[in-house]
């Protein structure tokens, strides 16, 4: 890896393969760790069904409870903006779609690159604001530990390096592109071992919450 091109070739080749294996196996292990614990049978006569109530909560928790929204609007709005911005940058940027197409043969229409650029900029600013909030809000500061800040960093870096690469703000280009890909690989490797896993486990958690309440006749 003596030159930027060698570096780019490594991150696009073996580096990516390693990250992908860790990402997929890690996620499978984490999901298995949760699911094999199971739960004991419930002998109380149910008042309502679990399945439908669980699925409803899975959807309804996407919107905040109105009273809580009023009390923590920044967390809610900031959370929406950066999550949506992150997914737009990841899945609607044409070069990303081409890469996915080349890898697994699936493709969909993207949006104009300058629009993705603007979204990425907003995402970056929001992520910085969320970090600031985490460092200053008494509740978030108390709850947060190294894992929270690591999760923030590995989420922030791919967006930031992508922005730098798009604007060619680091020379030579293969170096900045390589750094961008490397940052994504770091995210993939860190993902299964941190609370980034919530991106998968929230489905299980919301379902259980809704199912347990639904059994008692309450839509949670």
């Amino acid at each position: 890896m003596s030159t930027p091109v060698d570096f780019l070739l490594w991150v696009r080749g073996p580096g990516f393969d390693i990250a992908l294996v860790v990402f997929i196996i890690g996620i499978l292990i984490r999901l298995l760790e949760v699911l094999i614990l199971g739960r004991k049978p419930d002998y109380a006569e149910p008042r309502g069904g679990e399945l439908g109530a669980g699925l409803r909560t899975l959807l309804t928790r996407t919107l905040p409870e109105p009273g809580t929204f009023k009390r923590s609007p920044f967390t809610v709005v900031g959370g929406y903006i950066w999550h949506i911005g992150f997914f737009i940058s990841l899945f609607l940027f044409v070069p990303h779609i081409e890469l996915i197409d080349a890898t697994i043969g699936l493709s969909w229409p993207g949006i104009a690159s300058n629009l993705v650029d603007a979204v990425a900029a907003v995402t970056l600013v929001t992520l910085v604001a969320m970090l600031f909030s985490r460092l200053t809000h008494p509740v978030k500061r108390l709850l947060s530990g190294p894992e929270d800040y690591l999760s923030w960093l590995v989420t922030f870096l791919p967006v930031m390096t992508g922005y730098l690469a798009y604007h060619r703000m680091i020379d030579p280009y293969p170096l900045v592109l390589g750094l961008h890909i490397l940052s994504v690989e770091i995210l993939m490797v860190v993902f299964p071992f941190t609370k980034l896993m919530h991106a998968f486990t929230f489905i299980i958690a919301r379902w259980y919450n809704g199912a347990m309440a639904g059994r008692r006749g309450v839509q949670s």
Partner: protein
Amino acid sequence: MSEATLERGLKAFREQMNAPIASFFSSCVNCGMCAEACLFYTETGDPKYTPINKLEPFRRIWEQEYTLWGRVKSWLGLSQPVDDELLEAWEPLVYDGCTLCGRCSMVCPVGNDISYMIRCAREGFVAAGYAPDGMKNASRRAVTIGSPMGVKFPALAAQIKHVEADTGLTIPVDVEGVDYMALLSSMEIMNFPEYMAALARIFKQVGITWTLCSEAFEATNSGIQIGSSDIAKELVNRIVVAAERLKVKYVISPECGHAYTAIRWEGPNLIGRPYNFKVVHILELLEELRSSGRLKTEGYEDARLTFHDPCQIVRKGGVLEQPRHLLNMVASDFVEMNDHREMNWCCGGGGGVSAIERAEALRLKVFKRKKSQLEELNVDTLVTACANCRLIIEEGLEEYRMEIPVVGLTEMIAEHLVGDEKNE
């Protein structure tokens, strides 16, 4: 209660671990939104009362023993242990600072049922010896005497005599083969015997056969509150044995929140089998009698009144609409609080908090949430359906010099019965 040790505590934590709890811990991103749903945080502003923070000891057990990465971290010496010091420091958060009201479980964006986790975590705390004296004593009295307040059957028999003299009706005791066996809470026996009188009058009107049981009249369950499944099971089992011996079809859970959770939702799992009878909350039964036209009332309360939803009956119990229908039957000016039904705010004394002497100042402080809810409405009367809520609210209103009478819903219905000699 067997001797409490840290090892027993850790074992109890492990016994509570299951897929829901693991999915909840895996999903928490420390966004802090649960704090805004918790009256202990909103009324004190102290971040330590953030619901998910109350679970730190349990979270460590999960991470260190139920995740691969956590095990690696422990092996490398990078984990902080769960020791006596930690449990001692967290005890006031898990007990004094949580009423198990379940409001946090309704707002978590990733869907964590945090109050369920705290209920489970209490099993570890009590097994390790970290539970408030007030709750330990209540549990001890419940096991040895039969009631957390130390009420024995002769005390109930004395109240029965008074009620019989007042109403001219017989309160049946230990009658076999009737349809319903009614339970009471100690607080109803000692502070609100009107409830028993109301049952007698209503059941006479609708022609229901019922009984109390001298060996199992107490509905409350300190084991559920302190978090000891062993004690909870013992207390539930007394009711099950009595109900099956008397061959009743139904057991009526009284106007008490956690009693309903104990007998209706946790009970069958504590004894490890379904019951041979059904459990109904008194409000469920009254609503059924109303909708089928058997329960007949006359006249309306003129007072502007509102309903305080007891957390364990409404949000955690699923009895949501019944109190509304019943109130509209006898009240002409019933108004809802801003947050009501499953989003209602707790009175501040649920989950055993009312039994913790040292928590009194905190409890009165967090009552400010209910106080402001009431101030918004400007009501003359507050109706509820839990003797514990009722007492806690009365104390809170007295502390803040608010003159609002607090009434039990069953009693209010009984006051309006058609053909009742008291109303004639």
